[in-house]
Structure formats: structure tokens, C-alpha cells
């Protein structure tokens, strides 16, 4: 048991232990904040060590409890897991900073719940046992139910009802799939399951049920309806946190299960391709009809998941590498956008495009949003452009010209949508108040222009996490080569999972 494999337990154990510790000190807000940041920083360091260890394609594995493989639960990290671990830790740091600035973490349970949520996420990325994946996904979901419902209010509780019931149904289907899988294959260890989906149609059907449950969690069309009806109603920092954690675990699980259990079986790739194209188109068209900041961004979230699945459907090293790079940069960019939306909502009290305007006067926020929005739309030299170019060229290289064309067209629609948001929120003049001037509100200075009414300034602490993430996205775009290299190694590990299978099998 080398030290590197011993490190695998840390991302799972540390947040849990610290969460329990923080419950002993419910009112020490500074302690909560410091512990939250410290744990995320520790996991980021561990992810860095794991990345260094797996960048050459090797796999770090650890049998929990010292039991022999085949009996024990195996934690394993390859390049893909380490990459997701790293980007998740960065996201958690930024969202905790935003929550602290926005005052959303004042509740004694916020940081402990976020820590338990991250335990589930890190565990889901590191486990090589499908039932363990189920357990970690549940560990991830239970705090999310509480975080989403926090604060009450009829619309938020209605969203919580929908969110909990949808995820509970998906978990039940997941469990049923696991039961069927165990009954047909006799094991739930990913190493022992390798290739069985391609060989036996019974195992393929059972794993299909598992993938269906994961598709619900990843919000793949036509199972995406819960996403735009629930995420916009959460507290703003919570939406930003969820955007990079929950759906990504679903996508990661689809990648891992398809690559290992089906061994990249080309018979079902058309199904994934169809789902990917549908998701891209429906997501971006759904955003056209929305009139609020966060609903638009959440619909784009669904659309970008389609891009990632497109890379999976083109099951080549180039396609998978593009999809993994897309996932990494997308976590950062989407979180930046949602933190901007949260900053706007916190400062101006609303996310409605028609009620906002002139926010471009806040330089930090406007820069953060502009960079992230342009990256989402795929403008060079930002990270989104590199990711989309890699995807389109991989698709075209594999002969999937329709997919490449759809990707480009959806990108144009995304750009239009981002311009609409920019115009509605940042560029245009703020609307005149409808009600008559109150006696108790200060009169606007009369200089003949409506835009000189005193509007609240967005505090720098609110915009700083978004700006940091956006700049990270720029760095990722301009200096994409190292990350593309790691993504390529991860993709090679998916097309040929023999190293992974050897590490986790008995």
C-alpha cells in the first residue's frame, strides 16, 4: 500500500470527519468557513498528487479495509477521476467563497451539508464498485435536498418536492438496475464487469437500466425536465455549487460504465448520439423562451451536457479527450456564469431580464460575465472555443458530419442567447420604476438621463469568485495543451480500460 494509494481515502474521509467536527460548534461561523476552505484545498492538493501519478496512464487503486479485491470496495483513480477531482475541488472553493460573500453560509448546517455533499461527489469519482457508486450518489443527494430547500418559500419548496421525487425515482431505478446487474453478472465490481455488457445481452440490458438512472441525474433529454424547474429556485450559491457537481457525476458515471462494462460497444453508440443531439438542441431552444438569468443559464447547462455526450458517442480517443476537456472547462465556466447571476440577484433582488439593466457599470462582474459567456458560446481564444473545436473536429474525423453541424449551429444559438442576456442585464438602460416616486425614497438626480439613478453597486467580494473562475477559463483556453494532454490520457484509459480493470480486479 503505497502512500499515493493511501491518499485515495482522504477525499472521502476528510470532508465527513470535518463535517461531524463542525456540528460540535454550530455558531462558530469563522471556524465553519475556514474548515470548508481547508478541506477543499486539501482535496485539491490530493488531486494534484493523483494527477501527477496517473498522467502517464497508470491507475492508483486501494482496497478499502485491507480486504482482498473481489470482496472489498475498491477506490481507484485514473487520469479521468483525478481530473474531475481537481476541477471539483476548485469549484467548491469558488462556491464557498461566493456563499461567504453573499451571506448564504450563515446557517449552522450549510458548510457541514456542503462537506457531506462533496464527500459523495469525490467518492463517486473514486469508486470502482457500482453499488458503492449508488451509496456515494445518495450521500451526494441527501444534503442537496436540504440545501435546495433551505430558506423556504412556496416556489422553492415546490421545486424541492419536484427535485426530491425525481431523484428518488432515479435512485430507485438505479437500485433496480443494480439488482438486475448482480443477478445477471454475479458481481458489481467494475473490474469484474469489464466487457460483460458487450458479451451478454442480459447484462447489457441490466446496465442499460443503470445508465438510464444516470441519464436522469445528468439531465439528458428526454429526462431533463426536472433541471430547469428546480435549479433556478435554489439559493444562488447552491445553484452554482450544484451546476458543477451533481450532473457531472451522472455524466462521469455514464462515461465510466459505458467504457468499462460495455467496452465501448459500437452497437449502442447511435442511441447516445441521438440523445446528445436532442439534448443540445432542446437545451438551447428552451433557453430562448426564458426571461430570467438563472433559467436561461440552467437550460444552457442541459445543452452543454449534450456536447459532452457527443464526445462519448464518437467513441474515439479524440472524441473522448474533447469531451473530457469540455467537461473540465465547462464546470468552471458555468459556475462563473451562475455566480454572476447570483451576484446580480443578491444585489438587485431579481434575475428578470426586463427588470435589470446597466449592470455593465460594475466592471468586475461585467468582465467575469463577458469572459464566461463568450467561452460558453465558443469564441476564441477562450476555453469553450478550444473544447468545441476539439469536439467538432473529432466528430468530423469520425465521419459524424451531422453531429458536427448540429454542434456548430447550437453554438450559434448559444451566442445569440448570451447576447440577449448581456443586452438585458448589462447593456441596456435600467427600466424606469413603475410606481410613483415615494416619499421615503431619495429622489433621483435630475440630469435629463434616466441612467443616473443611484443603483446599488455589486460588492467586489460577490464578483471576485466569478472573475477568478472566468480568468481560469481564459488560462485554460490559451494554455489548453497540458490539460488536453491529460484529457487525452484519460480518453486512452477509457477506450482501452485494461489498466483500470487490472488495478481494480481481484
Amino acid at each position, binding site marked *: 500500500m503505497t502512500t499515493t494509494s493511501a491518499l485515495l481515502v482522504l477525499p472521502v474521509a476528510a470532508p465527513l470527519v470535518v463535517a461531524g467536527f463542525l456540528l460540535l460548534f454550530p455558531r462558530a461561523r469563522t471556524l465553519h468557513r475556514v474548515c470548508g476552505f481547508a478541506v477543499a484545498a486539501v482535496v485539491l492538493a490530493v488531486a494534484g498528487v493523483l494527477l501527477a501519478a496517473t498522467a502517464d496512464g497508470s491507475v492508483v487503486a486501494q482496497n478499502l479495509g485491507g480486504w482482498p479485491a473481489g470482496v472489498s470496495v475498491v477506490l481507484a483513480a485514473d487520469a479521468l477521476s483525478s481530473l474531475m477531482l481537481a476541477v471539483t475541488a476548485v469549484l467548491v472553493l469558488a462556491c464557498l467563497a461566493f456563499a461567504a460573500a453573499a451571506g448564504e453560509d450563515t446557517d449552522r448546517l450549510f458548510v457541514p451539508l456542503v462537506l457531506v455533499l462533496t464527500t459523495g461527489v469525490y467518492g463517486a469519482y473514486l469508486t470502482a464498485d457500482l453499488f458503492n457508486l449508488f451509496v456515494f450518489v445518495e450521500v451526494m443527494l441527501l444534503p442537496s435536498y436540504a440545501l435546495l430547500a433551505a430558506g423556504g418559500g412556496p416556489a422553492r419548496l415546490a421545486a424541492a418536492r419536484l427535485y426530491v421525487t425525481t431523484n428518488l425515482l432515479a*435512485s430507485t431505478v438505479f437500485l433496480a438496475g*443494480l439488482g438486475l446487474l448482480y443477478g445477471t453478472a454475479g458481481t458489481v465490481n467494475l473490474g469484474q464487469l469489464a466487457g460483460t455488457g458487450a458479451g451478454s445481452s442480459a447484462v447489457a440490458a441490466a446496465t442499460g437500466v443503470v445508465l438510464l438512472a444516470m441519464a436522469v441525474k445528468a439531465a439528458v433529454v428526454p429526462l431533463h425536465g426536472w433541471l430547469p424547474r428546480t435549479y433556478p429556485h435554489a439559493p444562488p450559491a447552491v445553484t452554482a455549487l450544484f451546476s458543477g457537481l451533481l450532473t457531472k457525476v451522472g455524466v462521469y458515471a455514464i462515461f465510466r460504465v459505458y467504457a468499462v462494462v460495455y467496452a465501448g460497444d459500437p452497437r449502442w453508440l447511435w442511441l447516445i448520439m441521438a440523445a446528445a443531439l436532442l439534448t443540445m438542441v432542446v437545451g438551447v431552444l428552451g433557453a430562448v423562451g426564458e426571461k430570467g438569468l438563472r433559467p436561461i443559464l440552467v437550460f444552457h447547462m442541459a445543452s452543454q451536457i449534450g456536447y459532452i455526450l457527443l464526445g462519448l458517442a464518437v467513441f474515439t480517443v479524440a472524441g473522448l479527450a474533447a469531451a473530457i476537456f469540455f467537461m473540465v472547462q465547462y464546470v468552471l465556466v458555468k459556475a462563473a456564469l451562475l455566480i454572476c447571476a447570483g451576484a446580480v440577484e443578491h444585489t438587485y433582488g431579481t434575475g428578470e431580464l426586463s427588470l435589470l439593466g446597466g449592470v455593465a457599470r460594475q466592471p468586475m462582474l461585467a468582465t467575469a460575465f463577458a469572459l464566461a459567456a463568450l467561452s460558453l458560446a465558443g469564441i476564441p481564444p477562450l476555453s469553450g472555443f478550444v473544447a468545441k473545436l476539439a469536439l467538432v473536429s473529432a466528430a468530423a474525423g469520425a465521419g459524424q458530419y451531422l453531429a458536427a453541424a448540429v454542434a456548430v449551429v447550437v453554438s450559434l444559438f448559444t451566442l445569440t442567447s448570451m447576447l440577449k442576456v448581456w443586452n438585458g442585464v448589462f447593456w441596456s438602460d435600467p427600466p424606469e420604476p413603475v410606481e410613483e416616486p415615494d416619499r421615503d425614497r431619495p429622489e433621483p438626480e435630475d440630469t435629463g438621463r434616466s441612467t443616473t439613478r443611484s443603483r446599488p453597486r455589486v460588492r467586489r467580494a460577490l464578483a471576485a469568485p466569478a472573475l477568478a473562475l472566468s480568468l481560469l477559463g481564459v488560462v485554460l483556453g490559451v494554455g489548453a495543451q497540458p490539460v488536453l494532454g491529460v484529457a487525452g490520457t484519460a480518453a486512452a484509459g477509457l477506450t482501452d480500460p485494461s489498466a483500470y480493470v487490472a488495478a481494480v480486479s481481484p
Partner: protein
Amino acid sequence: MTAAIAVGLLVLGGVYLILQRGLYRVVLGFVLLGHAVNVVLLAAGGLERRAPALLGQVDAGQAADPLPQAFVLTAIVIAFAITVLLLGLLHRGGDGDGAPSGDDDGIPARDGARDGDRDGVAVREDAS
């Protein structure tokens, strides 16, 4: 065979209840679905071997498969926790089927308007 019929009946009842109006019936539907999935997990281990899963005391050919038993225990605990949480939501927010109050018709609004009495502060229902 009986396991399959049992699962079928439970899923029948569960899906029917999930499609009903009102969160209380939906919760009961999920309880039934959870039971159905537990029976599926147990059946996956092979129902013809019924002896206790203790190798020292029982012949290996007769001992039940312990892994599905562990799965079922885990699933029961998790489903129990989520059921409690759903009932808490029901108690707190109503069942989504009551008379609309103001502009809330029980389904989330589509315009992303900010809501919540105190933004970001969790509501604690009791003092514990």
C-alpha cells in the same frame, strides 16, 4: 416466480400512487417502489438458497448470498432517510395539491423570480 409476481404487484401499486395528486400519496408510492426494488435485489442473490450466510455452520451450497442482503440493508436505510425527508417537506411546504395561495399553483414558476423569505438561511422546524 412468486418474487416476480410480488415485484410486479408492488411496482403496480407504487407507480399508480406516484402518479396521484398530493405528496402524501407520492411518498407512499415511493415506499412501495422501494420495497419492490428490495425484493429484486434479494432475488438477484438466488432465492433457492435460504440457509444463513455463515460458512462455518452451513454447507456452502445452501448458504444464502450475503452480498444482496447487504445491498438491501443499505437500500432500506437510504430509502428510510429520504422518506423522512419527504415527509418533512410535506409537513413544511404542503402537499402541492392544496388551493393556490397567491401566485403559487404548486408547480415551480418558470420565470426564476427570487423567492424565499430569508435568502439562504435554512428554515429550522424545531429547536433541535
